[in-house]
């Protein structure tokens, strides 16, 4: 047990280390900060809501540094895209926070926040799931036909549209092998930043699909590049939250210790899989988070009468964290078995790499 004097609660250290580890695995694999999972977990441990949110923002910045170092070693970061996006992301986050304050002032905050979360995440889930299933089918067909399969397979033609926009300056992202107007990247940064600031999260679950389907990077590059963005946006968020007095540094400290191990595993796990596997897990993460947010929305809309809904929403969110972590571990285990020539379920071989 540890007395978190700032948060005003006594919590077992292992719970925070475990939370850091679990979110580290998921975040390192799909390139998200995991704010939508950690904040409810901290609330369940007894942290006040504002303290949970601020502590989470600070932990995300530290965890993203750890993941980014490993993704840099794996070659998963396109620095041109990351640096082009930083300014837009910062501006977007600030606009999002101001929009949140405005809706709060007119008394709409809770409902608008939850409804926006549900709508955005549901839309992203549907698009990502449909596109990834098509990619999976293509991978399976190519494999059966004996064709060589690349690390990345996408069937979306959206990036081609955005890459054709001829507004100067045009930049060349060498690692991602694409040429695109810098304004597209900046606007993606602003848009995802607004959503992140408004929804009070790091924004990885919006930015990774945006990098894949708008900018046109591979899933692996989107994960690594997004984690660099999260260092900046999370660091800025952490600074603001700390100055407001919403951060318990010791809780951040113990979660980072757990994240050190989890983020290593999650980041290295990306080297075992093809792009669609990352997008599948991202989409599952999106739908699970959507269900959790939808339950809280129903609870708020019913005037808080169905108390069991709020409780189930929190339990569901925590379950999601563990489920995603176990899913990633299982996928890596199957990948290793497949590499060693052992039997694996039929859906696995197209999603993992053999060497």
């Amino acid at each position: 047990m540890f007395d978190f004097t700032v948060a005003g609660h006594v919590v077992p250290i292992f719970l925070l280390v475990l939370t850091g580890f679990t979110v580290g695995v998921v975040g390192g694999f799909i390139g998200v900060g995991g704010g939508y999972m950690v904040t409810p977990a901290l609330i369940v441990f007894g942290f006040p809501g504002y303290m949970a949110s601020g502590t989470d923002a600070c932990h995300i910045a530290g965890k993203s540094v750890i993941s980014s170092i490993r993704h840099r070693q794996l070659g998963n970061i396109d620095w041109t895209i990351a640096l082009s996006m930083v300014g837009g992301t910062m501006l977007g986050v600030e606009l999002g926070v101001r929009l949140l304050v405005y809706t709060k002032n007119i008394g709409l905050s809770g409902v608008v926040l939850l409804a926006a979360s549900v709508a955005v995440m549901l839309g992203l889930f549907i698009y990502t799931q449909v596109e990834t299933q098509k990619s999976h089918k293509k991978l399976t067909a190519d494999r059966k036909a004996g064709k060589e399969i690349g690390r990345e397979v996408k069937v979306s033609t959206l990036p081609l549209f955005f890459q054709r926009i001829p507004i100067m300056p045009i930049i060349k992202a060498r690692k991602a092998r694409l040429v695109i107007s810098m304004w597209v990247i900046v606007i993606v940064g602003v848009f995802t930043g607004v959503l992140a600031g408004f929804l009070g999260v790091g924004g990885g679950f919006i930015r990774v699909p945006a990098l894949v389907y708008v900018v046109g990077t591979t899933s692996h590059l989107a994960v690594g590049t997004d984690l660099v963005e999260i260092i900046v946006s999370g660091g800025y968020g952490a600074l603001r939250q700390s100055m407001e007095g919403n951060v318990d540094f010791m809780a951040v400290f113990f979660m980072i210790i757990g994240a050190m191990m989890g983020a290593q595993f999650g980041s290295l796990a990306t080297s075992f899989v093809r792009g669609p596997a990352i997008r599948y897990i991202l989409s599952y993460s999106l739908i699970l988070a959507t269900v959790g947010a939808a339950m809280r929305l129903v609870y708020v809309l019913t005037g808080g009468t169905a108390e069991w809904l709020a409780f189930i929403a929190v339990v569901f969110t925590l379950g999601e964290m563990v489920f995603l972590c176990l899913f990633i571990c299982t996928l890596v285990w199957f990948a290793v078995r497949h590499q060693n020539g052992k039997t694996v379920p039929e859906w696995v071989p197209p999603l993992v790499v053999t060497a």
Partner: protein
Amino acid sequence: MKTRGAIKFVVWAALAVALCSYALYAHETGKIDQMYYHSTKLDGYAVNTKEFFNATKENPALLQIGKADEINGLMAVPVKKGDLLPKGANGVIEKKIVDEGKRAKVQGDKLVVMVPWQIKESKGFKYRDRFIHKGVKTDPWSGVWNVAMTIGIGLCLGFMAEGLTDMLGWKIKKIEHFGH
């Protein structure tokens, strides 16, 4: 490669241990608390809320009112907006609340606390509304300290882990994004 990895691991591990030790030292000596519970943003009484968490209307807590640099036990130190908080304080009971007399009131030289916490609701979550953190202003530099320490520890642990895998001879290849 293994020798370079070993050097990298040792250097970053030493830095990580130094930073982590400093963080624990700052916690143990109360430096973190002092930065967090820095000054007050309203007029009222600085208190240590842990001392009267179990108080009830039937069995209220009686806090001795008086000036002090440190709060030990059931004490309430009168503070004005902008004053530095005494050591050990973790909340301020606003003068307005004391004047209302529903949750706390003054009786002679004692502050009587009857309702130390109550259930409230925000964004679909029910929570305990306590006096802890109330009226407390954090030292703005604590934000810089928090972020610098977080990023610093993240960097040290990240490079330490990288050094460890190099030292163990694990060949971590760059991913061929466009190859097979």
